[in-house]
Structures are given as structure tokens and as C-alpha cells.
């Protein structure tokens, strides 16, 4: 009888335990996912350039990490995602929004490769930071938006998600749709663009419902 009780207890304990998996967000070995942070305005300047403080120095940016609910499993290309979200309820999950202060370097005038490297170095400081202790159990995309808005300002309303101000956006990257509980390996964040003039793409990426903006 004692053995039975002990067995049942062990079973209950086992049932109560969770397997903890670690999923790492990455912009790629060479920072190839950072294209969304290297977008230029129509005048050819980097988005980040406009945010450099008057005295120079790093841009006081914040990284807003969102899990965007998709309600299904669309394709990974930006066009596919945008088309999916036209007839699905794609929305940011407010309970999962995380904001991390992340000063970004002044990359004004730097060639694209060097600028990429500098941003990659700057973001290296995030290594080890936890974005979520329990990932959503559904298909989502992970989106990182760089904004000039402070984390304090964004944290004012924890239950609702205020749309990020478009004029404050300085970069964006997102993952393919994924079920994080089942994913093997790292989650790659990137930005789907074929041109450096991609400021409009950043605005689309950062929008709450991933709606296309002409």
C-alpha cells in the first residue's frame, strides 16, 4: 500500500513538472537579419540617422518585442503574411509585450556592411536577456521593433497595446510563423526587402495588425 501511495505521488510530481526549453532569438551569424535596422529614408539617409542626438552619440532607442497572433499558419514571406492578415485576426498579444532599452549606434555615413556590424555589436549586449518565460502555445511571429519611444512610456498601459508611433520607428525585424513550443533550434529574425529604401516596410512591419500601407 505504501508503495502504491509513493508511486501515485511520484506520478503526480512528474505530471506537475514541465520541461523547460530555451529558444534563442537571433539576427543570424553575420547579422543578416538586421536589414530592417538599415533602411534608408527617401533622401538616402538611414532611419537611425535622424534619431541621433544633436550632440552625437548612440541613439536612445528601445526594442519592443511582440508576439503577433496569426490564427493559423501562413507562409513566411512578407507578402504572404500581409495577405493572411487581411482576412485573419492578426494581433499583438499585449500580455507578451516586452520592452528593452537598447541604445543603437550612430551609423551616419557608414557603408551598409559596417553599419550592420555596428548594430550587431550593439545588440550583442542583449545576449542572455529573457523575452518570455512561457511562450504562447499557438502559431505566432516574433517581431522586434526599434523605436525612439521609451519603455516607460510604452509600459503606461500594460493591458492594451498602443500602436507605436510611426515617426519614432527606427528599425524592425520579424520571424517566420512558428510554434515556439515545438521549434527546434534558434528563431531567426529578419526583414524581407530587396532595397535599402525600406522605411515604408518598417512601418508596415511595426504596425499592430501587419496591414499593408501603400
Amino acid at each position: 500500500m505504501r508503495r502504491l501511495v509513493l508511486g501515485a505521488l511520484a506520478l503526480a510530481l512528474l505530471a506537475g513538472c514541465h520541461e523547460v526549453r530555451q529558444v534563442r532569438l537571433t539576427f543570424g551569424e553575420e547579422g543578416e537579419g538586421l536589414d530592417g535596422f538599415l533602411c534608408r529614408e527617401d533622401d538616402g539617409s538611414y532611419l537611425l540617422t535622424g534619431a541621433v542626438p544633436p550632440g552625437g552619440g548612440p541613439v536612445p532607442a528601445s526594442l519592443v518585442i511582440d508576439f503577433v497572433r496569426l490564427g493559423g499558419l501562413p507562409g513566411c514571406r512578407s507578402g504572404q503574411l500581409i495577405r493572411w492578415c487581411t482576412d485573419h485576426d492578426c494581433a499583438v498579444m499585449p500580455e507578451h509585450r516586452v520592452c528593452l532599452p537598447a541604445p543603437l549606434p550612430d551609423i551616419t555615413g557608414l557603408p551598409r556592411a559596417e553599419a550592420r556590424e555596428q548594430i550587431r555589436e550593439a545588440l550583442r549586449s542583449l545576449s542572455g536577456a529573457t523575452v518570455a518565460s512561457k511562450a504562447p502555445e499557438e502559431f505566432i511571429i516574433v517581431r522586434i521593433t526599434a523605436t525612439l519611444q521609451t519603455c516607460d512610456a510604452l509600459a503606461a498601459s500594460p493591458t492594451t497595446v498602443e500602436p507605436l508611433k510611426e515617426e519614432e520607428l527606427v528599425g524592425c525585424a520579424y520571424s517566420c510563423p512558428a510554434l515556439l513550443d515545438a521549434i527546434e533550434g534558434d528563431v531567426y529574425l529578419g526583414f524581407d526587402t530587396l532595397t535599402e529604401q525600406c522605411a515604408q516596410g518598417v512601418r508596415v512591419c511595426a504596425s499592430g495588425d501587419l496591414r499593408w500601407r501603400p
Partner: protein
Amino acid sequence: MSNSSPSLYPPAVSHHPTRLLPSTGSPASLARLLSLLLGLLAGTASGTEPVGSLPTVTILVMGAPEAQPAVQALVEERRTRLPVTLRLAALPSPTGETGNGRELLGLERQLQEARRHYIDAEFASCLQSLGHEGVLPETLSAGHRQLVARLLLWRVACHVGMGQEKAAHAVAEELGILGLEIPADVGVLPPEVGRMMVRGAEAGAARARTMLRITSDFGPARVSLDGRSGVCLAPCSLEAREGRHVIRVDAEGRQPAVQIIAARGPELEVAFTTLPATPELAASQWTAHYAGSSAALDSTGSLSLLASALRAPRLVLLNAEPEQEGYRLRGTFTLDGRVAARTERRTAPKALEETVEGVLRDLLIQGRIVEPAPALYQRRDFWIAVGVVAVVAGASTAALLWKQPVRTEVGF
């Protein structure tokens, strides 16, 4: 199985509460204690089972001598798990002709004494030597017709010597009534004795006939008339001359019954009531009828007599017949003298002991001495085992199919 242990039917003994220790030392209490002790002693002596004890089953082994040790091991080393007390018995041994032989010698001595008195002309002593009236029927019922004829002859001689012609004729007439032949002793007696014998016998033989209708409470019973054994099986009818006759009936398991009748008229009803045979008598009956024939050993009559002779209300007869590759065990169970169960099994020599126990179990179950083991599904152990297996199977399946809940941490 249990093999679990089979339970017993309630033993056929009464459960009277008995106070073993007297409360006071009064004479009445002492008397009660004494009577109780005597009762217990008597119970032990008569072989009755103590209240609440296991029923005793007597086993008799016959046939192959190798079977004896297997049964002995079961009985003496108490290897059997049957809820009975086993007792090994031996077949009744033939008893010598003790009583009957002595009686015959005594009668012969009486005859010689009578003859001596006759020669000495002491005729009254001669008659007295030949014994009382009851000697004749006793001797006739024992079947000694010639001896009875000689007794009658010497009585006639004594009466003739005393000048009692009428009495002599009456005695001589009995010879004819009983259908006896004149014995050879007549040659040593005077001719007037011989003449008296012939006249009397002729007169007796000329008497009218009476039809005897003989019945018995226990059949089949062999009927003997005037010392002629097995003249018919009761119920039956016999013709006899008018006069005194001796009729005896013999039935297996019963004591012989004898009646002296006076046949008169055309018909006479003769009814017999018999008593159960004593164990000693049952043993001698079994020895006489069955000991010589192995084929009839397990017949109903043989078993009934054995049960009585061995004082075994529950008797198992095991007959082990050797075969090419082992033995054929035949078992018969007798309950209160009646065959209650029979069974048969074949066995290899190595498994003899085990098979003997199996045969015993079969017989005692059929004879309702032992309850059969309950069916598998009726056993508690079975359902416990099923439960345990189900739990183990369920736990194993759950363990195989169970996926540990996953919590995914996301970070840089």
C-alpha cells in the same frame, strides 16, 4: 490456487456447548464432571470424531505394492492439503474357525458321553448328556444336519432303553420331518432302536406339507431350512412337512436371524427382522465373500462390508493397477456404507503421490466432503491480480504515451 484452501461442508456432528470446569466442588458437580469425562472417553473409544475436528477419511490401498508408500507419505507426513484427517487401514484378515469348531467338539463329546451311559444302562444320564432342547435348533441353524441326526438317534436309543416307546417315536418322527437320514451309528445299537428310528422317520416323512412364505426386512437374504443352506432368496416360498423346523436368513452386513417354527396347516407366513452386523461379523462376511476375488473388491456389497468392518463412515478404496507405463488408479468413496463417488486416473510412477491426492480430492468433492475450489473469477486473489495488472498496464501506457508539458523560454 490457490490454489487457495477449500472449505468444508458442515460436519455432521452436533455442537452442544459443554462446560468443562465445574463451578463448585459439590458432589453434583463432581458427578457431572465424571460423566463428562466418561462421555469423552467413550467417544474416543468408539472412534467418534471430536466436535469441530476435521472429518476422518479412511484409506484402503490395494493392487500394486508400490502405491502403498505414496499413500503412506500422504497420510503420515501430512503432505496433503485436503482439509481432512487421513487414516490408513488394512484389509480385514480372515479369522480362524474358533467358536464353531469348539461347538462341534463339545457336541461330539456329549454324544460319546451319552454312548458311555447307554452302555452302562444309565439311560436317564444318557438323555441328560445329550443336552437341552435348544441344542437341536442351534446345531441345525449352524448347518450340521448329520450331527443333529446322531443326536436324535441317541435320544431315541435312550428313550427306548428307558422303555419310553411313545417319546422315542416322537423323537424318531422328527428325523422324517426334518428330512434327515438315519446315521451310521444305528449299526452299533440294538435292532429295536433301529426299528423305532425307521418307523418314526417314515411317520414324519408322511406328514402333510405346509407352504412357508418367507420374507425379510433386508434383501437379498439367503434362506436356510433345517440346516440346508441357500434353499431360496427371501422373499420366497418353501414346502415343509408339518412339525418343528428351523429357518435362518443371512444377508450381507446384517446379523443372521433364526426362527424355530411349528408348521401346521396349508400356509404359514414367516417374517424376519435382522440387525446390523457387528464390525467383526462384517469383516468375516467380507472375508468369506470378497477376499478371494479382486474383481469384486470395489463392488457395492464389498465396500459396504469394508466400511462396517473397518468402522469407517468415510472410506476410500484405492486400487492401483500396474500398466505398461505407470499405473491406473481407481478410487471409490463410500459414505456411511454407500458408494458416493468413483473416479479413475492414469499416472506415471513419478507422479503417483500427486495423482493419489488428485484422486482423493475428486472423490471427496464428489462425495461432498470437501467443497471444490472456487472458479478463478470467484477468487479474491484473482481480482486483486487483475487490478494490479490493470494498474500496471495503465501506468505503463500512460508512461509511454505521456508527454511532459513543455514550457518554452524565449530569449536572446
